[in-house]
């Protein structure tokens, strides 16, 4: 299955999908050292986003969250790629400064946690290969 979206940040990555229907706040919501989701009550609370194709509807919270993504990247704990329904400024800027492939305008309901997914930022495609 191949979904066509909109390019936010170029680059190609393959990984296991980690999908949530909840928004993510990188600043305060994700531990910048470990990549663990720490927001209380979040559907992904306790899960690690490192190396995953992280799929969520949209970002939220403080604009400092862009730097949280950058810090995760420097520490090798960033997601392999990000897929959004509707990308916003914090995630977009975070992906670009951290060089994390990012595509939005994707019907994220079609993606399931655990599936192998290939994200191509330049072509703005998300392919589930299982």
């Amino acid at each position: 299955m191949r979904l066509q979206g909109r390019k936010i940040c170029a680059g190609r990555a393959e990984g296991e999908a980690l999908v949530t229907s909840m928004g993510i706040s990188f600043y305060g919501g994700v531990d910048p050292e470990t990549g663990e989701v720490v927001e209380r009550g979040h559907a992904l609370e306790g899960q690690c986003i490192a190396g995953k194709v992280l799929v969520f509807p949209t970002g939220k919270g403080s604009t400092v969250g862009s730097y949280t993504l950058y810090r995760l990247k420097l520490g090798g704990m960033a997601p392999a790629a990000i897929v959004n329904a509707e990308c916003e400024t914090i995630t977009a800027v975070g992906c670009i400064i951290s060089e994390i492939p990012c595509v939005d305008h994707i019907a994220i309901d079609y993606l399931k946690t655990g599936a192998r997914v290939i994200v191509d930022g330049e072509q703005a495609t998300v392919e589930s290969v299982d």
Partner: protein
Amino acid sequence: MKLTQEEQEMLDGKHGRSTRKAMEILAALGVIYGAERMVPVTSVQVAGVSYDNLGEAGLHFLVDMAEGGGQARVLTTLNPAGMDIENWQALGIDAAFAERQTQVIEAFARMGVVTTCTCTPYLAGNTPKPGEHIAWAESSAVCYANSVLGARTNREGGPSALAAALTGRTPEYGYHLDENRAPGLTFEVLGRLEQTLEFGALGKAIGKQLEATEKKPVAYIRGISQASLENMKSFCASLATYGGAALFHIEGVTPEAGQFAPPAVSCCITQADLDEAIQSMNDASSEEVDFVSLGCPHLSLNEIAHIANLLEGQQVVKEFWITTARPTKVLADQLGYTRVIEASGAKFATDTCCVVAPIQGRFKALATDSAKACYYAFAKNKFKTMFKPFDEVVLEALGGRKR
């Protein structure tokens, strides 16, 4: 999105990797917000300067952008830093923090940024004219630039403002377009409005109502016959903090108000609303207050002159920070105000402020005339607050003694 040949070359990396990354940021924002093109900007204000907010990752990013050859193409100034750059030791800032903060400023300097660190760039030589397209971060300055100066900017974040500086462009959407500058909600103000404190309270009262609306309309405000520069900067800081507003119009006061008829949908702000806002920021007693600060946003020369007048020949009994921009401080030095103020024991905290300095845990309660400072004192540093008129805040630093 249509790019000019030069913009496309920036995106293709022909102007270096930092300029490329900057254009990538702007192009992505343009796509997200449906901009049709880039618009040249004449002025930039960059946020994300205090090491307390940036952290190691932010510093790393800035150093990398400087090493990648990024150079500001238009007049670019900085938000407050985490310390007085010349006099940090007197403010109790530790040496390790000072070293990192200095590296942040040096990275900006290498990129050709004017390193005046202030939230009031419009008082320090970065003063756009009506209709100019600019790219500013710092929510209070954005609100002031759009509303009081009539310039045009969205609320930029640290990286997007820097990207605008390095390219001289910003995507054309939001407040750059006429249709988004029209007011959507009228506020009839019936209360007494004279001092910075009252304008701060008004910002909170209106801001809370805007926050409760779904689409955050531009406010059209009636019932204010005059407002000083100091009143306007207090109001802008509060409205941006409590209402997320980037633009408002005041009938008979701000430059674009006359272009619009008052929106039919209206609500009232009464004296009781202002009193309630003031009360909501007062939970500290005089005994509890161990920190006094004026200058959020940064003080004008006029306000510093007034403080000098109030403090002359007296001794403060509490830690008292006077926060302002470096150029204003230099004038205060030349005019003799600094000598009078420092003789009282009060301290200049130039280039910084009580919002961005690393002071968590150092104090219990803050006295200020700033509604914005009250918000961050609690939200960031867990201080109690005393929200009083300007002169009474000075009196608080003197231990409540009248001269």
